[in-house]
């Protein structure tokens, strides 16, 4: 039994408990949201998670440092490269591995492309949730498939790339492929994004569904532990790519996309702006790509010195932290993922009350969940 006492509404009839999920079309995975509703108004809510808890943190302790990269792909299966990079950065910092210049550029390139595909999945999900029968959903998949073709050509896999290595990346990208990526991102992609924006933000019904729904101030959201685009939509400029530049972000010209309204529509606008900004960054990266090696020599039996390190990166959903602790052996002592959505989701009980059942999906889409990373 889940610890979820009913609050009830004073002077009203009995409230009803509605279990949304774990198998529900709009929970984006296996989230179980317990809602106490009075009529259609949510009185209190409690997310129940763990339906996808695969014990990745324990499994990582029984594998070598290199083998764990496979597991990081499966954490947030929508933003695979971000997880790989966060893990690789943590271990490289711990073991003092120097990453070749070109590898850093390649990593940044694919992570930014990954941000685009991840936000496209958000777009598909949120439009589906507000009831558009799949048209924006399928449109989002058109551009996503094009980018997935690049993933496949570069890494050999569509969803689980396992492409980054400690000390670099597995395969180089040749200049013809880079040119193709650049052509797509500069020419075809903005046209698609214009259409997406018109379908979502330009739609009157969407505006009436989202405007003024779920308005939270930046102070509230910071207090609740929310990070990422959901926070930036409330006016905060927190973006680790600017605050703690890693990769080649300090050499790129980009702006932090923010919005000061703080409602659900603002969160949509911020994510759409981030899609455009990422595409712009990718073009810059391809233009500035230096030559050279893509992988440093790293011993297969890597033994980082004793110690622990926590590395923060900006994943598409917020601040992704990876804490690795080493006891000087070939296997990690502890591999911990600070999942941005885990803490974003923990703010749901604060966010949902007094909204309608239909608003739940809108607010929920605003934080863009991916259960693989929440449950690990």
């Amino acid at each position, binding site marked *: 039994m889940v610890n979820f006492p009913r609050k009830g509404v004073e002077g009203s009839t009995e409230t009803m408990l509605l279990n949304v999920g774990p198998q529900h079309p709009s929970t984006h995975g296996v989230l179980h949201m317990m809602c106490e509703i009075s009529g259609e108004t949510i009185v209190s809510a409690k997310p129940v998670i763990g339906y996808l808890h695969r014990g990745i943190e324990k499994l990582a302790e029984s594998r070598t440092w290199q083998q764990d990269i496979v597991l990081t792909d499966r954490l947030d299966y929508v933003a695979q490269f971000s997880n790989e990079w966060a893990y690789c950065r943590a271990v490289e910092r711990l073991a003092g591995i120097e990453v070749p210049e070109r590898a850093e550029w390649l990593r940044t390139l694919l992570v930014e492309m990954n941000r685009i595909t991840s936000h496209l999945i958000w777009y598909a999900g949120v439009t*589906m949730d507000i009831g558009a029968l799949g048209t924006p959903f399928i449109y989002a998949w058109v551009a996503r498939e094009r980018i997935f073709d690049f993933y496949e050509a570069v890494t050999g896999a569509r969803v689980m790339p396992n492409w980054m290595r400690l000390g670099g990346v597995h395969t180089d990208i040749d200049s013809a492929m880079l040119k193709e990526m650049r052509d797509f991102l500069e020419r075809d992609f903005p046209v698609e994004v214009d259409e997406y924006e018109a379908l979502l933000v330009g739609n009157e019904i969407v505006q009436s*569904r989202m405007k003024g729904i779920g308005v939270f101030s930046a102070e509230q959201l910071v207090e609740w532990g929310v990070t990422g685009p959901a926070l930036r939509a409330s006016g905060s400029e927190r973006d680790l790519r600017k605050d703690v530049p890693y990769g080649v972000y300090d050499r790129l010209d980009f702006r932090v996309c923010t919005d000061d309204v703080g409602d659900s529509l603002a969160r949509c606008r911020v994510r759409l702006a981030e899609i455009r900004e990422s595409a712009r960054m990718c073009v810059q990266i391809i233009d500035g790509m230096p030559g050279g090696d893509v992988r440093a020599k790293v011993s297969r039996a890597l033994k980082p010195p004793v110690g622990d390190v926590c590395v923060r990166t900006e994943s598409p959903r917020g601040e992704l932290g990876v804490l690795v602790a080493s006891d000087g052996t070939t296997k990690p002592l502890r591999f911990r993922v600070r999942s941005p959505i885990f803490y974003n989701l923990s703010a749901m009980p604060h966010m949902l009350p007094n909204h309608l059942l239909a608003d739940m999906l809108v607010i929920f889409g605003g934080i863009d969940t991916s259960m693989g990373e929440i449950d690990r």
Partner: protein
Amino acid sequence: MSAAMWIHALLWLVGLLLLIAVVTVMGVWWERKFIGHLQRRRGPLHHGFHGLLQLPADMVKMISKEDIVPDSADPWLFQIGPLMVVVPAIAAMAALMFAPGFGLLDMNHGLFYIFAFQTLLPLGFAVIGWSCASKFTLIGALRAAAQLISYEIPMLLAALGVVVAAGSMRLTDIINAQAGVWYIFKEPLGFAIFGIAVLAEMNRTPFDLPEAESELVAGYQTEYSGMKFGFVQLAEYSVLFTGSYLVSALFLGGWNMPFLPASPLWLLLKIVACMTMTMWFRGTFPRLRVDSLMSLSWKWLLPIALVNIMAVAALALALPGIY
């Protein structure tokens, strides 16, 4: 009643049932195909010529599926629930006229008859949702009842404008009165209100709240499986057909076509066009929220419909020749 009348009635009954079957099969096929092409894909393609056999296959499967009655459901209401929406939906079609004198029964108050049976639908939805003892169906049913009842009033008021102008509730008279100018040009406001309200009456996007898939799984039909689900679908497409017929007959001139002789073909074409419009909406629009749905009906459509009917009545008094 003479034997000829019996035969006429029997033939028409069979014909109407066939029509419903064809409308459902072709409607679903056309919807999947049309929305598929809207979404840059193909829709049903491989079973039959361009997927034409897809719907017969679906129906064969549905008939042979297990018929589940949940333990906690009210067994009687659960069984008769689908009938309570299918029967009114089909019965309403008895008054449809496809050409002068070409129909089951040319009733004096045909329009009234159709609306009377449409009014029964929320009861059926409520029974379906209540009997399943599931929360999603219950919420869906309550939404359906609230939505259908509140959109009935603007719909009837908008239709009343046409009745005032035509001076009759007989569908033949109403359509014949549009031999010159269609009512869409005489009463554009009424047409807009009637179109929106009929869309809501048919539970179509953006008013598909009762079966809001992303919120309520499948709304009031969540617990129905097999042929019962098929019956509910049948009722939906019958209502869609009736609604499209009403829009075509009341505002789009029915079987009249400018510069061309009157023919049932025009009526059918208009019905198909109206149905396609609803599918287009379905492919593009998201869903309204439940409170904006209600405020749209009570705060906007109802006052405008009242203004519309007063204006039409005044015009009909002032300009008896034209209106």
